[in-house]
């Protein structure tokens, strides 16, 4: 029982980890928690659904198409809305991302309505694999693996590629980045594209276990955010670990304490972290010199 709860906790945790990673990548560069993240992922998932169901493309094409859409959506939102804000403060930035949330939610509701749909996934949620005494569905296993591969890729990207290092440089000291010729605006575009793509991955992995409607990402976003806060908001590794931890804690809570209140665990964690480690949220916030 414990192992089973742990295992499915990890599977769900990897989704939270992806959402947390997506948020942290943006937070580190644009210094704003992006509350539109969930809806960006939800809309991208709907695009996959549309390509698959309405236009009859193969799963592979639809999936890739949705990722491309996600990347463009990220670039578009940053370019059109955030970049226009002159001398923005944190509050106005947050308001802008809440604006994304509402606009994208509205678009999805208008286009696809409140009907619940199924995103048919080539990997089954019902066929099970045995791992020791526990079982895991193929879908959960795929989720776990995809998340893992994505994290390794991200790690390699930030560690070894010039653009990855330039992204970190820009996060740490935008002025110094500019005088070394790093085009900060381009870095912002790349950041939003990457983040949005990762979020879309999470959305598409989540849709088959949940139901695809405009509310798809409401709860997962909260949980991804909680994971990011748990991890300190500024480290990718922390965000990923936070995601796994939350997934596990939540599942154990659901299994041993109360299934009904499982969902409040994430909220409880945000509150606890903010109470006992208030610096958590802005732990390694870089002081910008003017």
């Amino acid at each position, binding site marked *: 029982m414990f192992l089973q709860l742990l295992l499915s906790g990890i599977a769900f945790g990897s989704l939270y980890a992806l959402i947390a990673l997506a948020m942290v990548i943006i937070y580190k560069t644009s210094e704003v928690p992006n509350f539109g993240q969930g809806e960006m992922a939800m809309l991208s998932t709907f695009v996959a659904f549309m390509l698959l169901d309405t236009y009859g493309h193969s799963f592979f094409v639809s999936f890739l198409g949705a990722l491309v859409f996600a990347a463009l959506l990220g670039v578009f939102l940053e370019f059109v809305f955030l970049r226009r804000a002159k001398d923005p403060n944190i509050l106005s930035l947050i308001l802008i991302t809440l604006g994304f949330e509402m606009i994208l939610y509205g678009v999805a509701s208008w286009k696809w309505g409140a009907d619940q749909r199924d995103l048919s996934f080539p990997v089954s949620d019902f066929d099970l694999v045995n791992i020791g005494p526990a079982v895991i569905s193929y879908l959960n296993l795929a989720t776990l693996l995809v998340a893992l591969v994505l994290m390794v890729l991200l790690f390699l990207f930030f560690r070894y590629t*010039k653009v990855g*290092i*330039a992204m*970190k*440089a820009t996060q*740490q*000291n935008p*002025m*110094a*980045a*500019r*005088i*070394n*010729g*790093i*085009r*900060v605006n381009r870095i912002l575009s790349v950041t939003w594209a990457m983040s949005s793509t990762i979020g879309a991955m999470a959305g598409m992995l989540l849709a088959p276990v949940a139901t695809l409607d405009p509310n798809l990402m409401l709860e997962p976003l909260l949980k991804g955010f909680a994971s990011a806060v748990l991890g300190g908001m500024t480290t990718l590794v922390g965000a990923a670990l936070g995601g796994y931890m939350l997934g596990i804690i939540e599942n154990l809570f659901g299994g041993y304490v109360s299934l009904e209140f499982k969902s409040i665990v994430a909220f409880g964690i945000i509150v606890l972290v903010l109470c006992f480690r208030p610096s958590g949220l802005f732990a390694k916030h*870089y002081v910008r*010199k003017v």
Partner: protein
Amino acid sequence: MATLLEIKNIETFYRLIYALRGVSLSVEENTITAVLGNNGAGKSTILKTVMGLLDDQPDKGTIEFMGRRIDGKDPEVIVRMGLSYVPEGREVFDELTVKENLLMGAYIRRDRAGIKADFEKIYVYFPILKQRESQWAGTLSGGEQQMLAIGRALMNGPKLLFLDEPSLGLSPLLVKEIFKIIVEISKRGVTLLLVEQNARMALSISHVGLILENGRFVMKGKSSDLMQDKDVQEFYMGVRSEESAKGFQRWKRKKRWR
């Protein structure tokens, strides 16, 4: 001798603060030019304005680098033209390693062989950086960070290099070492514009010196002449003299320099 940088009558504002009040300056190729001045005189503002770091500035005047107008251009563009900048306070990437910092200096370059050669050159100038190669820049001492900042700017492959107070906060011994290397860099064909409060040091290595006060140049001359000048000695090098010359009466005496 060719003129690399030609600044004509620039005026710069920080909102309502009138920081540069008509500054002109030309920098000749293969020289070291020193700009001296009190804290708050506007020295850093000159460099920031030229680098394009201040939005919509200069408000008036023109800046030409190697015969091309650069006022109004972005720093990302200016650095690609061959003008590099070591900012006041070093501004290294704290959570990148020393090596990654230098790599970011080479961000705009594609010539692998040249980049590699420059890495080696910088490790010869600053052997300590080689030792600290895989350490985060934020964990370096002030002097090491200054070396890294200079090294990073050299990795840009500049024709002209701005140095903003490289001696700030360093021990006298380290200052000597840094200045020795600055001279070395100059000999290797990089033209330098040096902003300093340490007038004695700056004048001892530069060819031309200018003195800035309240956003205007009040004096200009060969560095060797300035060093002999009674007023410069008194006001900038801490040498006491009996009488003060008339031209300097309006200067409010402030903190004495080292």
